[in-house]
């Protein structure tokens, strides 16, 4: 049986990097953790599905989730 301490965190990948988040964290918490305050010029994917900007705070992330935070860069 897992201890309470183990249950308190989830292991996710954020833009390919392993990260630990407190259980119950949302995509909005991921952005806050990255120091991103301006959400307008980003798009977020959770397990290859879009998380609409208006719902970033709604979904509770799960262990093993893969989060992508995407922005515009120069390209042709």
């Amino acid at each position: 049986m897992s201890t309470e301490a183990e249950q308190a965190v989830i292991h996710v990948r954020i833009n390919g990097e392993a990260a630990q988040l407190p259980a119950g964290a949302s995509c909005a918490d991921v952005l806050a953790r990255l120091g991103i305050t301006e959400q307008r010029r980003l798009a977020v994917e959770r397990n290859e599905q879009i998380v609409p900007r208006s719902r970033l705070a709604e979904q509770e992330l799960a262990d093993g989730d893969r989060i992508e935070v995407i922005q515009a860069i120069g390209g042709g």
Partner: protein
Amino acid sequence: MPHRDPLVIAGREYHSRLLVGTGKYRDLEQAGAAIEASGAEIVTIALRRSNIGQDPDAPNLLDAVPPERYTLLPNTAGCYTVKDALRTCRLARELLDGHNLVKLEVIGDERTLYPDVGATLEAAEQLVAEGFEVMAYTSDDPIAARRLEEIGCVAVMPLAAPIGSGLGIQNSYNLLEIVERLEVPVIVDAGVGTASDVAVAMEHGCDAVLLNTAIAGADDPVLMASAMRKGVEAGREAYRAGRIPKRRHAAASSPQAGTFFE
């Protein structure tokens, strides 16, 4: 007096027939200045992972090319599969608040960066079904171009030569065939090197030209952007004016009659 001659894509009118990319510039300031000098109204962007750990207040590309001023055209550059292209387009739509116009490219090979036409057709079909307005990068194959139009792409964008090669138009005959057969705008996308290449593309009857490296990679990108703008305008006017036929022998431009030497 210039005639009213708008470029119409997906029901929207544009005055400029030059579309430019935002890649490979020294910095955002140079990109902004060159794009301004090009006169372009449609500007391509790429989507990548946000640079985690960098200053969150660092200037964003969208500050240099604000969506309020330019029609942004997110591309699927770097996508080698239908799935990756679809993901990228959906992310672009989210990023740009429901904006549906996308540049689809599904690349087949690193060496040539040629499009995988089969995968491009499949992705285009799916994107059109999802309500995207698809501008499709493709080879200079007239049959593939027609299939993309049938699928419902809002513009078909054959390459002049491989991306970034600067070789200019390599297959005039195919390009002419595509221009003559399609109703939707035909936009030469990739492979042009300098202003004359752009003018030639427009003289072929192409509706517009999309380029990036030829400006960003020039010694003076802002000056080259201005040259490209003029190349597009000159080529378009020449096309509309109707050039004289080529002939092997001379045809005097001064009258033969009325000379006063016996």
